């Protein structure tokens, strides 16, 4: 994975930058020693590492604004970072850039039950929002599996999802407003406790922008009343096709379950060996379907789904009769990643989305790809919305295996796009899928996205080297070519 070449001119001025940043963020808020910097050299995508030039940990919006304005003035690159749990390398540092860590923005500023929202700082963890409002029976719906550690600011940057987003939406659907600082230091508010956007929906495009458009310093999210009941079905199928047909039949029956997860044979075996929750080991696919809401609704729908499952040939079917059983159903799924970690020295988690109808075809093709390169794949799948998480098993200590895993991952994501899907359903592009963007998007599509970047950050200082396979070239992109058709800028290098 190539990053933009470091600028020696910037590296030479490190001492000057440190002094200037210390003048803005005093005390321990500027880190420039090797040991301190080492803690920031990677995020959740641990295969890629880079020690940043400087780490800055501001505590106030004013400091964020002044740091960004300073960086803008001297042309210093900025990589924003929340809790550093990105699985796509969204906060991978740059050798000639600073890490702007928002970890000290860790307060819940306001819980407004009457308007059903919470105003929090970006460094607050996802789960602590729910903890703060659970006493009143509320919760924050998006639940990425890293929710104990990941920050709300990072959730906004990545438009994080989770197992419940089929019914309750992604971060963007639960986000009401942000305070945003632009690279030139301008502080602005987008959205708030009201619902209609005022003007263009800039909030909508900031969410999921992976730290390329601005730095979020405050977040207003919707909170929901927790459902009265949750019950789940656990269903095993002898064929993946039958499990896929069951998922489609549930949707066709007009039911949007709170969660609908699928695991394949290898994932089931790994999970069962790890947490021993009683998953059947003689099935090709396991479905967990969770329904939530008032007891009358859940009891009614659980029977409907049971009939659908039986009709689709489920060879194994259990319905949770209490909370312990329900949590047991989930325990294996939630532990699937660490469980796979036990059967392989390393694994590489992919994140494509496909039209659900293509699942059997995609799984067959993945098996072929897996056999061809000799690396195993375990599959967990947000079946309701088609979001596939193939886990590629490899051993980083074997020379060449990481590279093979990367190639297999790229082939899988390319396959996702070929069947009508997309590269990433919830983890983001980051550095990981950057070079695959041209598989999904044509040149004009990427040009338009990069032009949007130019509107926010003309000098390309915010998180360069992420999302786009080529750096933005705002001056060229801004020109209107009326007599098109020629290849423009063929000489431009990619990383």
């Amino acid at each position, binding site marked *: 994975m190539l990053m933009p070449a470091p600028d020696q001119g910037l590296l030479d001025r490190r001492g000057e930058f440190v002094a200037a940043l210390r003048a803005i963020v005093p005390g321990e808020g500027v880190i420039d020693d090797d040991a301190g910097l080492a803690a920031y050299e990677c995020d959740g995508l641990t295969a890629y590492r880079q020690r940043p030039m400087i780490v800055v940990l501001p505590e106030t919006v004013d400091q964020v604004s002044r740091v960004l304005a300073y960086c803008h003035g001297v042309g210093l690159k900025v990589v924003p970072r929340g809790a550093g749990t990105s699985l796509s390398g969204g906060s991978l540092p740059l050798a000639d850039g600073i890490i702007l860590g928002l970890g000290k923005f860790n307060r819940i500023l306001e819980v407004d039950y*009457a308007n059903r929202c919470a105003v929090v700082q970006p460094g607050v963890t996802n789960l602590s929002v729910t903890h703060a409002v659970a006493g009143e029976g509320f919760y924050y719906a998006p639940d990425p599996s890293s929710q104990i550690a990941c920050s709300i600011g990072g959730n906004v940057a990545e438009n994080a999802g989770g197992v419940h987003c089929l019914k309750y939406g992604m971060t963007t659907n639960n986000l009401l407003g942000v305070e945003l600082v632009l690279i030139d230091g301008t502080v*602005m508010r987008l959205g708030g406790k009201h619902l209609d956007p005022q003007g263009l929906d800039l909030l909508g*495009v900031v969410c999921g922008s992976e730290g390329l*458009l601005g730095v979020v310093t405050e977040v207003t999210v919707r909170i929901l*009343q927790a459902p009265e009941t949750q019950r789940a079905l656990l269903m095993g199928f002898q064929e993946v096709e039958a499990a896929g047909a069951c998922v489609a039949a549930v949707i066709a029956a007009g039911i*949007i379950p709170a969660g609908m997860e699928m695991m394949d044979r290898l994932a089931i075996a790994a999970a069962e060996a790890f947490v021993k929750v009683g998953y059947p080991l003689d099935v090709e696919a396991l479905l967990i379907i969770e329904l939530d809401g008032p007891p009358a609704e859940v009891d009614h729908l659980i029977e409907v789904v049971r009939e659908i499952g039986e009709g689709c040939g489920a060879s194994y079917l259990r319905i949770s009769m209490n909370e312990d059983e329900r949590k047991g159903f989930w325990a294996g799924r939630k532990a699937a990643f660490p469980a796979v970690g036990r059967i392989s020295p390393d694994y590489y988690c992919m994140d494509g989305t496909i039209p659900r109808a293509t699942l059997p075809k995609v799984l067959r093709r993945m098996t072929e790809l897996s056999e061809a390169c000799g690396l195993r794949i375990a599959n967990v799948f947000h079946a309701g919305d088609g979001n596939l998480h193939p886990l590629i098993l490899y051993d980083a200590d074997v020379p060449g295996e990481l590279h093979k895993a990367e190639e297999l991952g790229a082939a899988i994501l390319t396959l996702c796009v070929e069947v009508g899907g997309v590269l990433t359903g919830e983890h983001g592009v980051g550095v990981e899928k950057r070079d695959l963007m041209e598989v999904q*998007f044509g040149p004009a599509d990427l040009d338009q996205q990069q032009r949007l970047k130019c*509107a926010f950050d003309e000098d390309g200082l915010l998180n360069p080297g992420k999302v786009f396979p080529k750096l933005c070239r705002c001056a060229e992109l801004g020109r*209107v070519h*009326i007599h098109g058709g020629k290849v423009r800028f063929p000489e431009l290098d990619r990383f």
Partner: protein
Amino acid sequence: MAWTPNDAAGAEQAVKDALAQGKALELVGTGTRRGFGRAVEADEVLDLSALNGVVTYQPEELILAVEPGAPMSEIAAMLTERGQCLAFEPPDFGPLWGLPAGLGTVGGAMMTGRGGPRRLTAGGPRDHCLGLKGVNGFGEAFAAGGRVVKNVTGFDVCKLATGSFGTLCVVTELTLKVLPAPPQAQTLVIRGLSDEAAMAVMSKALGCPAQVSSAAHLPADIAARSQVGELSAAHGAVTLLRVEGVGPSVTARIAHLAQVLSSETRQAVLDREASQLAWKEIADASFFVGRDDPVWKLSVAPTSGAAVGRRLADELSGRCFYDWGGGAVWLELPAAPDAHAGRVRQVLAQVAGGEGHATLMRAGAAVRAQVAPFQPLAPGVAALTERVRTQFDPQRIFNPGRMYA
């Protein structure tokens, strides 16, 4: 003479022609939403109504791809046949602007970006736009988003385009998320509440586990205009709380809700049909149809709805009602040269402390040219908005003046 492309390639050519000839375009479908925003200052009309096909509808994938000129009424009927819907309940403001009902297009609904009463729980058009194809102001055809319901690949240009009033690009195809239509719906009605009391009741209802999908309050003068007998015959204010879903669930939740609100004794329940009619009236602001006095829609934090709405209605001798649990205040005021814009925004700023904004939803073109139908943006946001527009439409050839002068 309007320019009338038949397909996406034609739309792209039209944009190239406009660029070459230095002409600005007014983008229209059936033109039913011309009353929304400012009148466009364009040289030519780019009529997209011939781009009206269904590209693909896959009920089991929950996606629908259509061309922008597809009539909303036909699309709604097609979805209903499969038990699905556009969950954001696209409002039909045609009658509000003196036009027949049912003429709008999908493109118009998405580009004006307004959701109906289910906005609180199901989101607005922005939350249901998954992908688009379009032509930017560089004359380039481009695509954004995708055809699956879960996607974070690249910037979410779809959200930006939704609600952009055609000021960023010519959309030639939209992929939308469709959802199962709730098979059953009932509405609990509480009679006789003051506006302030209604805000508290709606907040309580929306914060309880009954999963209320919509909450509105119609003061007495508005309720009297309802076509729903149970509401107009109430001879007083009505507060409406909608519960939707499968039959057994709706029955149980209505009962639960009635219990939660048992201190409000003047309760009644609207059945499915009456409920549908009532929420359609609320979505379309039908109570203001057949007049031409200025109409405003204020978007505020729900609990400040009454403080802003009642005060303005009383002070300016108008009338108002509330949707979104108080978060949307619809306000009809007597005619005035500035449609009372100054006062409306002044009171909004005082009461809501800078939270929220006011949109002029109905007024003559001359008034709309003069008073900024969309609330002026803070300087930093306004500057960013202009930069964003420049990156989509550098020559300002799409709907110039539609949003801001």
